[in-house]
């Protein structure tokens, strides 16, 4: 029984309670900051243990698997928890400069911490029903954060976000019920063994598609993504950033987990559906972004197109493909949250996120312009930034399977990504501000400026580090992909028997 697996869930939970109790005083936000720092520390400890041992597992309340709830961390879970803590910390620091007192008093920090509880729980659990519960924890916190403050846009976007996500939840629950009905177990490692004894494989494939739809909604896969561009540009920037960074990735993570560990029976069928959906997701996302004229709405559509690359890596189902998916997942969380942070600062000094109503950022805030270029180029896949390696591995994996069309589309979508980044650059940074405002960073009070810029600089530095020294990260992704494709260690650690 390793306590390290429990800390990433318990720490934010305690922080949520404490910061709710102190929500009326400035102490609340400092508690939130301290709690998230502690979470980062705990997740790094967990990661070093996972790197040492490969997979670690803990049986809750000492009920042996498959009867109790198991927490498991393999390399993928471990790195996702670390990246969650990093994004969480960046968001808390950023919120110091952005979130007004009124929202803090409504419980912003408590909701943010509950969101982190749900996300960490989803990454660490080894039980399908427990995964559903963590999804719900995450979902209810995200509902609260999305409509916190209650502006008209937020309520409008909130309705679409809430209703479509509820449908996905119900779909997920149905899938769990039916899967339990034919296998008699909910433990994911045990399911890996149990599905091999199911005679009616057609039924199993039907259930697999149910999971695909459920997680597809969460991951914003084509044609299930409509809630995302409807809502992600409405809440405060700190909230959009953590949503954009983390929430869809939980969907992608769940797809990767279930479609390597449980539903690997009929790969020719399920994974070719995933493959073509991934390709269409990439194209629709990037074309949607090209049609938008708002900083945050362009970025929202880009989330969708990038999700396509990750699912493509999973759908190829080769060591290289999964390795690309893992690398992409980590890279994308950092870059996307950072772009939203930049959009928030641009809004603060230039007054809007609508591209036609802002400008002059290059002339008057060159630091911000430079910090925009790093994640923007990384997103588009320029060497030597992290996005280049991510795209390179996924495209290489497609080429290795002689999928020329898929690889070509992957490259073309990268080109279109540059187009819409250029569009932002050409409207928000290059020309003068239409109202003659000079948007300077020094207009923001010192304390707020530090809080806003610190996470942007830190995440941009992280992108550069991954891009310039990719070797350890690539090796890590390779190991993680190996564990996904050959789950024997995972199963042995959870069940304690040789599969």
């Amino acid at each position, binding site marked *: 029984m390793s306590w390290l697996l429990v800390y990433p869930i318990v720490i934010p939970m305690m922080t949520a309670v404490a910061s709710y109790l102190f929500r009326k005083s400035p102490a609340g936000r400092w508690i939130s900051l301290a709690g998230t720092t502690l979470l980062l520390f705990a997740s790094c400890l967990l990661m070093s243990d996972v790197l040492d041992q490969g997979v670690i597992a803990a049986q809750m309340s000492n009920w042996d698997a498959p009867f109790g709830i198991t927490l498991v961390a393999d390399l993928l879970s471990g790195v996702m928890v670390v990246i969650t803590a990093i994004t969480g910390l960046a968001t808390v620091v950023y919120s110091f400069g952005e979130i007004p007192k009124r929202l803090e008093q409504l419980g912003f920090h408590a909701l943010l911490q509950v969101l982190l509880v749900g996300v960490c729980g989803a990454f660490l659990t080894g039980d399908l*029903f427990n995964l559903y*519960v963590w999804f*719900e924890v995450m*979902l*209810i916190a995200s*509902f609260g954060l999305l*409509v916190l403050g*209650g502006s*008209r*846009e*937020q*309520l*409008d*976007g*909130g*309705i*679409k976000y*809430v*209703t479509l996500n*509820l*449908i996905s*939840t*119900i779909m997920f*629950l*149905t899938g*769990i*019920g*039916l899967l*339990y*009905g*034919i296998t008699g177990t909910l433990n994911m490692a045990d399911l890996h063994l149990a599905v091999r004894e199911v005679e009616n494989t057609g039924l199993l494939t039907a259930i697999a598609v149910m999971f695909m739809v459920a997680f597809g909604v969460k991951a914003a896969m084509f044609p299930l993504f409509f809630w995302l*561009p*409807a*809502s992600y*540009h*409405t809440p405060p920037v700190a909230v959009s950033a953590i949503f954009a960074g983390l929430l869809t990735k939980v969907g992608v993570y769940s797809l990767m987990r279930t479609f390597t560990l449980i539903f690997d029976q009929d790969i020719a069928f399920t994974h070719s559906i995933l493959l073509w959906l991934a390709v269409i997701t990439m194209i629709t996302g990037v074309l949607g972004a090209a049609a938008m004229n708002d900083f945050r709405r362009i970025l929202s559509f880009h989330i969708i197109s990038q999700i396509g690359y990750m699912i493509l890596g999973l759908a190829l189902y080769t060591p290289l493909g999964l390795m690309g998916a893992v690398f992409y997942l980590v890279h994308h969380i950092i870059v996307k949250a950072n772009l939203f942070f930049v959009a928030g600062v641009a809004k603060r000094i230039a007054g809007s996120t609508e591209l036609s109503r802002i400008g002059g950022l290059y002339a008057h805030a060159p630091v911000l312009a430079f910090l925009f270029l790093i994640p923007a180029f990384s997103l588009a896949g320029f060497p030597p930034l992290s996005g280049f390696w991510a795209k390179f591995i996924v495209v290489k994996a497609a080429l290795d399977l002689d999928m020329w069309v898929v690889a070509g589309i992957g490259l073309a979508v990268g080109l279109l990504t540059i187009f819409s980044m250029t569009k932002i650059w050409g409207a928000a940074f290059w020309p003068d501000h239409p109202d003659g405002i000079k948007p300077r960073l020094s207009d923001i009070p010192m304390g707020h400026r530090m809080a806003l810029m610190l996470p942007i600089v830190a995440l941009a530095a992280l992108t550069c580090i991954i891009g310039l020294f990719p070797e350890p990260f690539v090796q890590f992704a390779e190991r993680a992909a190996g564990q996904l494709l050959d789950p024997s260690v995972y199963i042995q650690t959870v069940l304690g028997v040789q599969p």
Partner: protein
Amino acid sequence: MELLLAVTIGILVATSVYMMLDRNVLRFLFGLVLLSNAVNLVIFAAGRLTVGAPPLIADGAYAPDGPIANALPQALVLTAIVIGFGLLAFALALVYRTYMSLGTVNSDEMRIAEPEEAKK
């Protein structure tokens, strides 16, 4: 018994899909309530139905005597009911707030967050 449950689930799902196709968000939510109840029944039925054999262990014994009903689906359904209740309560409150603030429950008229492009 299984047949009865299966037919009930089918009717519930059909009704809820019909309601969820409505533009009125409130009707959509009622459909969602029905659907979540249908799913609870699915889980219950998936755990196999056993008549008249409560999962009780006699005093002093460590294992039940003979076959008993599966208690796990009921625990799952209970959890799902509680979670579903919370989410739907939130969703209803959200619809109410939206109605107060936007003055409509017609999803076609909700275009504040995604305004239509200005006509040229």
